[in-house]
């Protein structure tokens, strides 16, 4: 029982990551119909926004400490962050500690810019081109973005911890009368879950309660006719792209404390996010979110020792297996709309 509850919790949180990534992708892929292989790269850039912010916060001057020696036996150079100089050691440390949450404010404008530039400069010319061309150009872009990050930040993962207030975990089990330590849950993951819920809600509200969503859907189905009705669809597509990039970026920022970011993290998530979007059904936002959570939870169950013992290797394939079953039983995924990318 508690084992199952635990995996549901784990699944929810894995699911919120999947859902958040898929949400950004489905805005571009499910709604605008652009096969965006660079989406993972956007997620990765978001994560590196957090890295960059913590680097900026720890920009330091160097002092020589004669009492200590470095590996070559020379006096040790010690780095003192400027924030220490400006705000004092204690406040400075708190600011550095809160780098990840602070990066949200940095990431939003950056990601919107990245999205807008990407759309205006590149994707714009590909709406009416075959999907094959979109794949090639966005894949190329993804590689380029990835390599740029690799060039500046290296290939090694870069630890980007959560504020110390959020380290450690929370004993759920004890709260609900289970044995202590049976159901523990890290604080940061709770934060991530809540954050995902807020973002998902906000995006829904934006697309549901404004005519924006309808216009964009219409524009994707038939740009020409929408133009005939006096609507500047290009502008809205651009906004949509900026929004999607921001969502992807924020997902990345908040993910950094969970897993140290590295330059290929986007590629690692790419295939999975496509699977989530398609299983959710093309063109459906709720579908993508639902599929994210569903796959997250099922993946968690499949990784239970008791399950692996019965079906060895199930944890390796569960996501794909479920995807196949869903796509075979429901022709357009969980909640897909007819006619979107069916040919």
């Amino acid at each position: 029982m508690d084992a199952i509850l635990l995996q549901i919790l784990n699944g929810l949180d894995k699911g919120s990551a999947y859902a958040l990534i898929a949400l950004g992708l489905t805005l571009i892929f499910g709604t605008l119909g652009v096969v965006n292989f660079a989406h993972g790269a956007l997620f990765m850039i978001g994560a590196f926004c957090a890295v960059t912010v913590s680097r900026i916060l720890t920009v330091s001057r160097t002092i020589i400490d004669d009492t200590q020696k470095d590996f070559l036996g020379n006096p040790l150079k010690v780095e003192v962050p400027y924030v220490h100089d400006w705000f004092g050691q204690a406040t400075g440390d708190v600011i550095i500690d809160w780098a990840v949450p602070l990066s949200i404010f940095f990431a939003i404008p950056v990601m919107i810019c990245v999205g807008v530039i990407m759309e205006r400069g590149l994707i714009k010319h590909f709406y009416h081109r075959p999907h094959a061309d979109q794949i090639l150009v966005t894949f190329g872009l993804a590689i380029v973005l990835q390599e740029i990050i690799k060039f500046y930040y290296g290939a090694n993962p870069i630890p980007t911890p959560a504020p110390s207030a959020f380290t450690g975990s929370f004993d759920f089990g004890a709260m609900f009368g289970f044995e202590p330590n049976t159901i523990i849950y890290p604080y940061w993951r709770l934060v991530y879950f809540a954050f995902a819920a807020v973002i998902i809600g906000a995006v829904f509200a934006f697309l549901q309660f404004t005519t924006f969503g309808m216009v964009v859907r219409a524009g994707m189905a038939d740009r020409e006719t929408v133009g005939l009705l006096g609507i500047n669809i290009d502008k809205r597509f651009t906004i949509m792209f900026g929004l999607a990039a921001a969502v992807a970026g924020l997902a990345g920022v908040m993910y950094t404390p969970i897993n140290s970011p590295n330059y290929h993290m986007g590629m690692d998530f790419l295939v999975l996010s496509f699977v989530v979007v398609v299983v959710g059904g093309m063109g459906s936002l709720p579908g993508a979110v639902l599929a994210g959570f569903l796959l997250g939870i099922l993946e968690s169950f499949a990784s239970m020792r008791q399950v692996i013992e019965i079906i060895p290797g199930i944890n390796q394939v569960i996501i794909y297996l479920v995807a196949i079953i869903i796509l075979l039983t429901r022709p357009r995924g969980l909640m897909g709309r007819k006619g979107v990318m069916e040919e």
Partner: protein
Amino acid sequence: MNAKSEFSKGANAASTAPAFLSVWDMHSYYGESYIVQGISFNVHEGEILALLGRNGAGKTSTLRSIARLGDPQVTHGEIWLDHQPLHNMKSYEASIAGLGLVPEDRRIIPGLTVEENLKLAQIAPPIGWSLERLYDLFPRLGERRTQEGITLSGGEQQMLAIARALARDIKVLLLDEPYEGLAPVIVDEIEKTLKIIKEQGMTTVIVEQNAVRALELADRAVILDTGGIVFDGLASEVLENEELRAEYLAI
């Protein structure tokens, strides 16, 4: 439009003409195929102009060029609507400037209901007929307002396409084969509507294969053949001119 620069800047015959909509020496291409081969004509405020010709004559291409749809690409020429230079505009700007086109294959937007299709037309200003008024004119649409637009019958779709154009406050209405697929009674109905909106001062260009009906409705007619104008005059003239009818319209 990369062709913009090629529009002649100085002496433009069109701009001085009293016409409401005027097309002057327009050339358009689909890729490399040269389709609209330098046509000029004027439409005066409040009149109905019938644009006729055989299949493949270039009628649709002409309307699409005027509506600035990008394909075919206009490489040379001027288009003026009520003193506004359409040839410098994109299609959405042309629409805001007052141009309304009912495209030939109706172009109902998949995924949207009937009502959403209409509402879409009322997002950008200027807004024309209200939904109620449109449903009054086409009760079938009112009954089906929540049905997905593309599941309508062919004729119903045609009604929706016309209604959608009227939902915007337009200065000129371009109709590409509006009677196609409509039952004779409905054709009568639409004809009446066109007359009504003409009385209200609407300027209309109608492309129609049912030439007789179009000519009976129209004040003037332009006949196209392989991308060029072969006749420009009063509609009644065409009806009377056996030779012309036989040669270009087979009626």
